[in-house]
């Protein structure tokens, strides 16, 4: 599903080149559940953003579902992204002005899905995550765990093949974190959604089937 070859990422800081990622080679099959670990500044999030097409590498090749991500046109990449990738953030990043229902619905709007279909999809998702009663609340009226639940529901609504999560439990207490991890595991096992998560916590990393350790922009061991 994902092939990364010789991925480099750097910033130019004056005359110095500051490397964030160095020579990343990675192949990920569909159905995988990968945890990326590493200390602050090791390039975890950068790698996730490159995989998630939010950022480009300075050098290297990236194939996603057989397409060369860095070579295809902006529009195609956007389509590829919209169809296949869902994102979950540490700070949830829900739109404050929209209700739970509307937040979950938003990705479908950008995929131009008809109203009736949209309604049933959102209703299903609310049902599945057990948040029907909260659908008309605004993010500020929810606890952190509930907000992250909505964030995940929103990431999954368009039935992506790949779910990317950047420290999804970082702002949550351990009990809430565990629930989210259980949910990830279930999604991965029952629906076959590929998951890549960045995490600091060994315990959460263990939910993954595979752990990648990053240090100073390099993969330490597989």
């Amino acid at each position, binding site marked *: 599903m994902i092939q990364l070859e010789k991925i480099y990422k750097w910033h130019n800081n004056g005359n110095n080149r500051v490397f964030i990622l160095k020579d990343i080679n990675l192949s990920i099959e569909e159905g995988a559940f990968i945890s990326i670990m590493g200390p602050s500044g090791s390039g975890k*999030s950068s790698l996730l*953003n490159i995989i998630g097409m*939010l*950022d480009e590498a300075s050098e290297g090749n990236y194939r996603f579902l057989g397409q060369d991500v860095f070579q295809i046109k902006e*529009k195609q990449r*956007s389509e590829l*992204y*919209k169809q296949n990738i869902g*994102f979950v*953030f540490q*700070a949830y*990043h*829900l*739109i*404050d*002005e*929209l209700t739970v229902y*509307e937040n979950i*619905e*938003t*990705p479908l*709007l*950008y*995929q*131009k899905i008809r109203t009736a279909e949209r309604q049933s999809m959102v209703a299903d998702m609310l049902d599945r995550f057990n948040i029907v009663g909260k659908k008309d609340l605004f993010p500020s009226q929810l606890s952190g765990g509930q907000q992250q639940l909505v964030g995940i529901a*929103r990431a999954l609504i*368009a039935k992506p093949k790949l779910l990317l999560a950047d420290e999804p439990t970082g702002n949550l207490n351990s009990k809430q974190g565990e629930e989210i991890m259980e949910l990830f595991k279930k999604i991965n096992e029952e629906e076959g959604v590929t998951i890549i998560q960045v995490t600091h916590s060994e315990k959460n990393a263990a939910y993954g089937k595979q752990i990648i350790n990053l240090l100073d922009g390099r993969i330490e061991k597989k």
Partner: protein
Amino acid sequence: MIRNYLKTALRSFQKNRFFTFINLVGLTIGFTCCILMGLYIQNELNYDRFQQKGKRIARVIMAYSFGEKINKGNYTSTKVAPVFKRNFPEVESAVRMYQSGRIVKFEDKVFNEKKFMYADSTFFDLFSFRLRQGNTSSALAGPNKIVLTETTARRYFGNTNPVGKTLLINASQTPYLITGIIQDCPENSQIKFDFLASFSSMGNIQEKTYWNANYTTYLLLRDENSFTSLQNKIPGFMKKEMADQPNTYVSFELEPFTKIHLYSPYPGFEPNNSITYIYIICAVALLILFIACFTYINLGTASSIERAKEVGVRKVLGADKWQVFWQHIGESILLCLISVVISLILVAMALPWFNGLADKHISYSALFTPLNLSFLLSVWIIVSFAGGSYPAMVLSGFQPIKVLKGLFRNSSSGLMVRKSLIVFQFMISVFLIIATLVIQQQMKYIRSKNLGYEREHVLLLPLDQKMLENYPTIKTELKKQTGILAVSRAVSNPTLIEGGYHMRSDAMPPDGIVSVTASPVDEEYVRTTGLQLVAGSDLTQQDMENADELKHPENPAYQFILNESAARELGWSAQAAIGKKMFLGDDRPGYVKAVIKDFHFRSLHNKIEPLVLFPSSWSSQMLVKLDGNNLSLAITGIGELWKKMVPHRPFEYRFMDDAFNELYESENRLAKVLSVFAGIAILLACLGLLGLSSFAAQQRIKEIGIRKVLGASLFQIVKILSKEFILLALLAFLLAFPIGWWAVNRWLQDFSYRITVHWSVFAITGISTITLALFTVAFRAIRAARSNPAKSLRTE
């Protein structure tokens, strides 16, 4: 999708109440000003346009000279219309008109009617006024026929049909037969009347002279392109006509009817406007709209930080750049729509006030024509895009990753744009403030200038033929009243004396005549108006009798009062002039009795020119000088006397002060309009500054926190935050200074007597602008400086 955007927009308006409120206020003021001024400009541009034959109509301007200087005026004698029609094939028809006040009586109703118009029966050939009743070919044919407007008919006759009834006109109570009812004159027409009487009613109308120019002549040309060809024929033709008067020059110029109101220096029956003022108003309206837009752009960009996260999330969820762009343009359109709707309500509320300010009768419904609505629609869309596209571009260009990671920094190039906008806004404001201050100073100078006569406590009363017969008694009775110092009769009061004559001294050859303004007065004129004698003595009762054309039809003897300029013009010093022989016109020989100090007998736009006051029984107004101790008592007394002595006329008076103010009506109006809009402009500019400084405070909140933790005082932080913006205001002031200097001096050129623009105007403007800017910036800066550093420094 639209619904999602709409919801987001409305909720974010609600969330950012402060910014939304400022935006709404700014845009609403901008739109309201624009709509009002647009209506005004449209009204002015449509002036007289309802006349279907307007493009073929010409007004005749008389040009005449007795020597070097050519005088021009919008009046002609009665001869022009018939002669031109006979001699020039280009002229299809012609009408002579004359407007004057008349006393109108029907049964027990007596009114002093101001809008009483005389016109030839050809009136209907030229002008598109519709007769509701009566026949266009006969209504004004023959003397003593009169047509009433619908409103006037209702005023006198209620719902009964007035056609066939008679009205008694003037002191002589001449019966006029009502021959028709005409539509009310549209508001934006240079020809406005309540009564339209046949021209022949005025008697001897086929005068054989080109002099006695008291009438307005309009020509209807066969072809709207024949103005020039006809104009070229006139000087030659007139040379032949005036062959018997070799020392004089008389010719005529044609003015296109539709250009009179905005382009002609000579007023019509209604006061003119100037196309320059239309341009000024147009420019001010656009400037206000610009300022409102700039404020909007500034606040839009400023609040983009708050929207950045949302944009980032939307992009992560699959929105592309254009979707984000259109979403924010959509919000802009929505916000502008709300502003437009509020503006429409405000316009409805402000229109009466605005009509008063601009002296107009614009109706609210005038706004709802297809043309205006489509114009409004385009302004709405243009402002939405102009104001919304820059913030939308900034927002749509955000990189989601940076925004969501909190790495978001606003680009410095964007800040440059916003600073320029602020500078431009302040420039406009400073310019308007300078203009307002200078205009107000000039108006104050005019009001307080010693004009050479006393205009306080002088009552002006009408004087008609019937009253003149009884004048000695009226005067005696008036002088018996308490509080009355002097009573005079004359044709003109000193605020405005017109009347083209020529004069020469006995020492000059008969063809050495010079132009002069002259006006008939009586023996108390100088005393009543407080004119100052420099040499000689005032006119006496005897001088009046000697000059009375009725008592001495063969050889009236004149004693003249000259102003200093007139004495100089004839080659005399004030002292030397006394007793010298001179001629006023061809038929008034006499001697100089007195020389008076030069006084301003026209508006201060004009230089003081030679003036002769001469004794005559001819007069049309009474001047009554009151002692000013108890004005209302004195006026009541005069009113009661009036009822007894002048039963045929309602008691109407005005003060010379008011007559004086009328001379400067358009300047006073400009001053009022400009001060209102200067106020609005500076308000909007401050809103913009408020927005930008809030933005800066928000952006630097972390810096402020750190400085506070390190021990900076409130004042130091406010200083850091304010300094930059004060510099911007200062820069704006420096840029606006020369433009303002140039513009106000241009305007002052129109006055022969004017203030010199003092540096204090610029100092006041500069200090007040910068103080205002300082307050605005400090308002947000203090808030930012007082914020809790623990909060602003807390990491995610």
